[in-house]
């Protein structure tokens, strides 16, 4: 096939289905299929550089396009922008990055040697042993099973590991409860865990270079003659294809495996699973995705977006200036009131309120936002407790509500730009938390984006926030037992707004104070 290169991307003579690798200075950076990635531009088929790669394209690189057999189809020394150095697609620690099939930059396994990956393989073994010890049939799954069966190794273009277990339960409620219990037991072994859904969670393992690697743990169960396996499978399946378990080698270690791994791999990757495909992306059928969404998911909505938004500033503090809503709370509440900042984001208000004599809880579901404050708060002796609260999980809400209800003395909640950045489930749980925390009297200070007076709703540059109708908020608050004591709409300046509007017009917020009387 005729292929050429320029500063804008790859140009193909035809739009066929072959997988092509793109290398910068001899290292694979990205793979694509022309049939999916190419666009018709001025009479040719163009594959533009992926969005996330473009930020790295400054300087010179020898760019190569290779086919699956390693044959070079095009090669050129390209100069991007006006830099003279070599293009470096690396993270801040200098670790090589690759574009994954979803278009995101990741550190793939082929950038690491076996010694670097040893902690991850250790963790796979540990987690499988733990699950087996609980009487579950556990085995490597998805890419990890595929690599083990195909080559006995982790797949070079993969970037995380997967294990699964087959539950003895057959009802989603029991499967979810079992997953909660497993999470607790692994936590007690000192593992760092983040939950994806009712049936899956991630264990974070650091490799020997300190690169965080995800080890995903998926629940599976048999349901009406089908195998349900988070997060993608809902397929007719025989129990005997899974158990009794056999074995498979991974990086020189024998691990438990499904009785007939071929069957599971075909359900996961289709009949051509034996052919390596670095562009493979799961495309779960709509009906299956919907069923799994309804049964298990909805506890992580918008989370990845917020994690990404804060990821580049994890260790850099924001301006110390508080938001107006924190000032309003401080002026109105008695000295020494315990303040709970729900959705505290980067934590400016947490610190400002603590410095004014309040005991403050800063809670958010994205720990990246307040990561910069964790050590600082302890060093400075601020009366601040920072923690994860996921309002999309009822368990989080109930456990935190019970904790906050035990705080002595007056309490107040502050929720700035939170109601307009979460789902109906998130709002429902905020009201639940408020009622538990303030049930014996107290106020919630909320602020949320609204359409301008007499104007249509705005669109924001960052889709993580949107306008909310104050009448909806008030009706929900009243239903949760509150009384609105103050509501005003204000135009926001640059410091107060969470992001710009798409058309550059001013953004507006409603500031609403709600009061719970002693029940």
């Amino acid at each position: 096939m005729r292929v050429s290169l320029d500063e804008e991307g790859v140009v193909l003579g035809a739009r066929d289905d072959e997988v092509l690798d793109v290398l910068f200075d001899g290292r694979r950076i990205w793979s694509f299929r022309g049939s999916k990635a190419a666009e018709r531009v001025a009479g040719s088929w163009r594959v533009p550089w992926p969005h996330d790669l473009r930020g790295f394209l400054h300087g010179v690189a020898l760019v190569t396009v290779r086919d699956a057999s390693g044959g070079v189809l095009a090669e050129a020394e390209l100069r991007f922008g006006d830099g003279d150095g070599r293009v470096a697609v690396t993270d801040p620690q200098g670790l090589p990055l690759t574009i994954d099939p979803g278009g995101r930059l990741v550190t793939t396994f082929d950038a690491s040697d076996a010694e670097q990956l040893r902690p991850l393989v250790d963790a796979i073994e540990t987690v499988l042993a733990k699950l087996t010890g609980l009487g579950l049939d556990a085995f490597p799954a998805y890419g990890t099973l595929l690599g083990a069966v195909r080559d006995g190794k982790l797949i070079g273009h993969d970037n995380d590991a997967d294990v699964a277990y087959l539950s003895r339960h057959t009802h989603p409620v029991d499967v979810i409860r079992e997953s909660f219990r497993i999470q607790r037991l692994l936590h007690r072994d000192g593992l760092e865990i983040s939950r994806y859904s009712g049936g899956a969670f991630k264990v974070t393992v650091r490799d020997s270079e300190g690169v965080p690697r995800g080890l995903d743990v998926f629940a599976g169960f048999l349901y009406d003659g089908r195998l349900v396996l988070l997060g993608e499978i809902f397929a007719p399946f025989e129990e005997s294809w899974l158990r009794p378990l056999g074995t498979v080698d991974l990086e020189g270690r024998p691990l438990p495996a499904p009785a007939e791994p071929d069957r599971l791999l075909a359900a996961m990757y289709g009949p051509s699973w034996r052919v390596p495909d670095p562009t493979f992306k799961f495309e779960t059928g709509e009906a299956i995705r919907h069923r799994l969404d309804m049964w298990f998911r909805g506890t992580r909505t918008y989370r990845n977006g917020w994690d990404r938004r804060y990821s580049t500033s994890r260790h850099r503090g924001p301006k110390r200036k508080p938001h107006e809503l924190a000032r309003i709370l401080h002026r109105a509440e008695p000295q020494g009131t315990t303040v709970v900042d729900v959705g505290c984001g980067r934590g400016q208000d947490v610190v400002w309120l603590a410095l004014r004599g309040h005991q403050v809880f800063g809670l958010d579901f994205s720990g990246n936002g307040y990561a910069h404050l964790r050590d600082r708060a302890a060093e400075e002796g601020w009366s601040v407790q920072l923690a994860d609260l996921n309002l999309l999980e009822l368990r989080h809400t109930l456990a935190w509500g019970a904790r906050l209800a035990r705080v002595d003395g007056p309490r107040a909640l502050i929720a700035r730009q939170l109601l307009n950045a979460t789902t109906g489930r998130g709002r429902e749980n905020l009201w639940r938390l408020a009622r538990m925390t303030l049930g014996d009297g107290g106020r919630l200070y909320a602020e949320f984006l609204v359409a301008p007076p007499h104007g249509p709703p705005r669109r924001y540059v960052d889709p993580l926030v949107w306008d909310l109708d104050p009448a909806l908020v008030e009706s929900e608050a009243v239903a949760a037992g509150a009384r609105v004591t103050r509501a005003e709409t204000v135009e926001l300046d640059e410091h107060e707004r969470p992001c710009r509007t798409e058309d550059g017009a001013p953004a507006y917020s409603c500031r609403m104070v709600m009061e719970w009387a002693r029940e």
Partner: protein
Amino acid sequence: MSDSQETNPRPFRSGLRRLYDPRGLGERLARLEAEVDELQQLNLRLAELTDVVQELLLPLARQDPDQAVELLERYREELGT
């Protein structure tokens, strides 16, 4: 008396719909789908509730408030992120 507050602002469209779908199957299907979604979403909520209750019922049954508080703290710490 009924608490139904259905209104019919578009009689022409509604008339057409009745012509093509005299038994209202489209609407009934949409309503059924919404109801199934609602029921399926109860799985997670029920599992969460059962988990909290089961973990905390034991100290309550033993009438040991200190252990209840301790368990509650541990439960919260083990929720992960």
